[in-house]
């Protein structure tokens, strides 16, 4: 298909980038590599530097230190229009004085392609995103999802070596968001283009991307595939940002983690002395008093303080000697929900325990 890039996908390498505005350091010694053809995410809370890093790759920010490479080419000192990367803006940035077709054709015109080819390629791009029928509309006459697709078509039309997406789903309603993110992933796979996606929404990153760089406070906290991030978070920030955690007070004491009530769990070798025990709500088992604890588990007693209905699970807040713990219980037809004030027992499974530091 002619819409496929003519060249093989390229890697994007960020090397020891530091950027500050005055005294305010936005990016602190950031290094990472996006593999060729990978769908990569910069994930983090607002103000973590993810958009700044994306704009740096696009050429709209300048770093004080470090290099950016696209493929083997050092683009650090190139202007935006010399870089051959496509950026889809959060607000789409469609030009209101041009039609959909004119928007899509713009980059091709700037590349001084023959008129016939411009028309053909812009038409193909609109077909790719399913908007051929709306070619003569103005952007203001389109819905949010359609505008988003025009922005995508406009960017892909010039066959950029890298596709950058700045919170592309944030201006869509919840239902559209799910649909568009699937389309995005399918499109990226078909085109085989290297893509970087900026978002603060872990669900978006998890569902769309091959690998994620979790960022906080101008630093990369961890780079990993979504499931690895969830299962093996590198630190407390990553664990908290991707899902809910219970941090259970205590301290590492030789080969065990000693809780405030005196009970102890064995810790894996190499656990840092300042580490904290972290258990996810689904890794604590809520049991009646009749059953015996599973081997090696630690049993706590507590009182149900609150419950939230989350769809297929109920999340209980249970007050224990070790503080408030959150426990997710799958809803089944047979089980009756626990009442507020009811006494329950909790089993902490050492096999699911995470020992994390700040």
């Amino acid at each position, binding site marked *: 298909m002619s819409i496929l890039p003519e060249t093989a996908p390229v890697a994007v390498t960020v090397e020891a980038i530091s950027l500050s505005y005055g005294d305010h350091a936005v990016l602190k010694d950031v290094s990472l590599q996006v593999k060729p053809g990978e769908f990569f995410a910069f994930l983090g809370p607002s103000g973590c530097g993810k958009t700044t890093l994306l704009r740096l790759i696009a050429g*709209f920010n300048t770093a004080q230190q470090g290099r950016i490479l696209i493929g083997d080419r050092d683009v650090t000192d190139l*202007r935006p229009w010399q870089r051959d990367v496509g950026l889809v*803006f959060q*607000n789409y*940035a469609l030009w*209101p*004085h041009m039609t959909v077709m004119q928007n899509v054709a713009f*980059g091709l015109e700037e*590349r001084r392609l023959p008129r016939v080819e411009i028309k053909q390629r812009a038409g193909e791009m609109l077909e790719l995103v399913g908007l051929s029928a709306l070619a003569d509309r103005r952007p203001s006459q389109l819905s949010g999802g359609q505008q988003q697709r025009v922005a995508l078509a406009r960017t892909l039309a010039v066959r950029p070596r890298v596709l950058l997406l700045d919170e592309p789903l944030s201006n869509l309603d919840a239902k559209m968001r799910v649909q568009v993110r699937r389309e995005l992933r399918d499109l990226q796979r078909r085109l085989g283009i290297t893509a970087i996606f900026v978002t603060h929404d872990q669900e978006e990153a998890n569902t769309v991307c091959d690998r994620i760089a979790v960022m906080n406070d101008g630093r990369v906290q961890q780079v990993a595939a979504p499931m690895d991030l969830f299962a093996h978070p590198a630190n407390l920030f990553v664990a908290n940002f991707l899902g809910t955690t219970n941090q259970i007070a205590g301290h590492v004491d030789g080969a065990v983690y000693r809780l405030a009530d005196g009970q102890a769990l064995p810790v894996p070798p190499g656990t840092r002395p300042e580490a904290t025990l972290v258990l996810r709500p689904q890794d604590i088992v809520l049991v009646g008093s009749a059953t015996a604890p599973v081997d090696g588990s630690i049993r706590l007693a507590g009182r149900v303080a609150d419950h939230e209905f989350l769809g297929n699970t109920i999340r209980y807040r249970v007050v224990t000697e070790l503080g408030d713990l959150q426990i997710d219980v799958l809803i089944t037809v047979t089980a009756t929900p626990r009442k507020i004030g009811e006494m329950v027992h909790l089993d902490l499974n050492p096999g699911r325990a995470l020992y994390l530091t700040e």
Partner: protein
Amino acid sequence: MAQVSAIPRLRRAASGATAGQVAAALAIAAFLILFLAWPVAQVMIAAFQPKGGGGFTLVNFADFFATELFVRSFWNSLYVSGMAVLVATLISLPLAYITSRFEFRGTMLIQTLGVVPLIMPPFVGAVAMGLLFGRNGTVNLLLEDYFGITIPFMEGLNGVVFVQAIHYFPFILINLSTALANIDRSMEEAAQSLGCSGFRLFRRIVFPLAMPGYVAGAALVFIKVFDDLATPLLLNVKDMLAPQAYLRVTSIGIADPMGYVISVVLIVFSLLSMWASSFALRGRDYATTQRGGGGLDRRRLSGPQAVLAYGVVIFILLLVLAPHIGLTLLSFATVWSFSPLPDAFTLAHYARVFDESAVYMKNTVLYAGLAAGIDILLGIAIAYLVLRTKLVGRQWLDYGAMAALAVPGVVLGIGYLRSYYGITLPGGVPLATLWIVIVLALAVRRLPYALRACMAALQQVSVALEEAGENLGATRLRVIRRIVVPLMTGGILAGFVTSFATAAVELSATIMLVQSNADAPLTYGLYVFMQSPAGRGPGAALGIIAVILVAACTLASHLLIERHRRRSGGLR
């Protein structure tokens, strides 16, 4: 305020307008009909009636187009307005572009220039410009000495174009600057990442997006120049439309149909340029700034670029300030003729002006103050009725008030004469000769400014803020007093100041209505002074005083309302 406080509930049933609302709306409608629609209708009717009245005829228009003087005046007016827009654009474009696109130190200074035309009537500058740029003015004398050439800046229509462009360019500058500032940075960045840069970026993205703002400014300049009568008259250019209308009515009388025909032509062109401007804006609200976005990317100027940019800006500033500089020199000059600078300086003109012209100043402050007061009362009331009630036809109050924009001052003046000269008060004094009529004309002319300011201010007050007040037990009246008006103060102040300042420098309607020196405002006095060579020194002194007076009143009202706002905001 009476109308506002008479309005009870926020949103009754869709049809439910209260008696107070209806009364307020009818009072406003009556005002607009009596002092805007009726006088203008009188002018229109007279243009289509044979001399002496009765029946319908197009013969007046045939006469108009058969008279060589009028046809020439028509084309001259078009030419001068068009050229003034062009020259004003040439002045504004570099200023707007440099200040919005680059890191530039003088940005504040250039933006301050926006108030310059508000505080000085253009015809005052015309005299000073003659002395600086005329055949024997400073610039041409120097050019002649050093290069042996002269440039006819001020000859005939050139002079009108030059003076008007320098006076009115801020309307284009402000609109263009705002439009440029409203373009989201991502618009530009999207083009850059697709390979577009430099001048192509400006031509393909930036300028098209700023176009509606530019057209709005250009249309405004076009109307202002087309309708201005004092500047051409002072430059001794009589063959233009607005001066002709004035001359016909004042020399031949209010029964002469030609004055009315010219008035109709003036109105038609006003409407045309307003239509052009709204056509340009329709469906093209390109204000694209998003949260966290903000304006074009400001770039640092390189060395040679900086020299060029500052050079261009300083040159333009000198040009723009020329009328003020010239006027200041003239006001202190003993004799200034055939020399680059005055021969000697004196304070005699100021002494003379203070002796003779105190009444002008008093009248100006009185008239402009009353007119601006009427304007904000009407402005608040109309804004409230339109935005916060379901009154049937409330939009028409807005349209009606805004229609004043399309009525040239000279036309309104003629309309008042025709409508109210025949009505005499007990004692035989014609209604049209009372000074309060001048105030009403000024109020009608400046109402659109105050109204837009009040509308904008009220739109920014969320209905929820009022509902919160009502919910906590405040009556409708107290909500208006404690929540709505305090939150609108900024807008009301802006409306008052704009109406006041522009009313203080108005001449085209006033010149028709002033009957005696005792009732005349400053601008009329200025005009009388400036017409004789001997009066120019005192005229310049009066002009400087006018500028200071208007600036001082504007500042004072600003401070007064600001203090009131702080006090009521602080204690209550």
